[in-house]
């Protein structure tokens, strides 16, 4: 179980580190902790893996990555771990998850993301992926994103905060 102080700390840091000389001291002040404790707790959370990464969260679209595609495959269960690990190593793959199938309407169980500057480039990368991993025999689909209706929610957790999970759109 996460300590209440750590939860509060994560909720506060999620808002974004202040761009000022001593950002952790400012966070500490808000939480009635001291700077060293904030740094120690964040280091521990990162080491434990609860914080997957700490850093700059870029806006891909704004940086020219206008084409982003969710690519999905139907991989036999016996192969999915092996294939997931393999696919995740390609430089242009952003995320790679196993998720449940939903019968005929959704037969796919492996999900990955490709961000590219153009649709053509993304399609080229997908062809390369399929060829390199011998995925030709597995059903796949590609879902390009169109409109973004909401990029990041208001923070929401017990007292009204939420967590930024990685989806990198």
């Amino acid at each position, binding site marked *: 179980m*996460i300590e209440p102080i750590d939860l509060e700390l*994560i909720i506060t840091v*999620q808002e*974004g*580190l202040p*761009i000022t*000389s001593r950002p*952790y*001291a400012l966070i500490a002040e808000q939480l009635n902790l001291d*700077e060293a404790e904030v*740094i120690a707790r*964040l*280091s521990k*959370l990162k080491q434990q*893996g*609860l*914080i*997957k*990464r*700490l850093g*700059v*969260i*870029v*806006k891909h*679209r704004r*940086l*020219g990555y*206008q*084409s982003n595609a*969710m690519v999905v495959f139907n991989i036999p269960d016996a192969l999915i771990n092996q294939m997931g690990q393999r696919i995740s190593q390609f430089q242009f793959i952003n995320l*790679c*998850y196993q*998720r*449940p199938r*939903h019968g005929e*309407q959704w037969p796919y169980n492996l999900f990955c993301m490709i961000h590219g*500057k*153009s*649709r053509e*480039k993304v399609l080229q990368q997908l062809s390369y992926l399929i060829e390199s991993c011998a995925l030709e025999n597995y059903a796949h689909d590609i*879902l*390009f*994103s*169109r*409109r*973004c*209706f*909401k*990029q*990041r*929610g208001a923070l*929401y*957790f*017990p007292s009204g905060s*939420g*967590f*930024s*999970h990685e*989806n990198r*759109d």
Partner: protein
Amino acid sequence: MLSSLHKQLLNDYQQDFPLSPTPYLDIANTLGVTEEEVLAAFAVLSEQDFISRIGPIIQPNQLGNSTLVAMAIPAEQLTQTANIVSDFPEVNHNYEREHHFNLWFVLIAHNQQHLLDVIEQIEIQTSFKTMQLPLLEDYFINLGFQLDLESKAEPLLVSA
């Protein structure tokens, strides 16, 4: 235009932002610039919306419960439905995608019951079914997304 300092800040500090009392000074020392320059560059990146923030990404399902959700909505009702969905504070990353399942979003709640309650509310308020796709396994080894900030984007074929 992005300077080389901007580009370094965007590419090199996605994973391991310094956890020291003076992280911006540490970055400045590494890059051979002044702390003021680093602070100013981050301020520009933030004001001009190139970064959403400097902060943590939480491992999915470590705190609370989350799921990816897809819905198949008739084109003429999509905007309206998407807006209903976006109004839920638990909703994040709400996107239109080119597919029969054309509305995709992530739901994050503080426990499983809360998650189910929100899904039920979304179905009631939109009158459409949801398809839930919770994460079963995360294969991604995060090496950071190396941005190509040199080559220009090719013309768009589809409106973003």
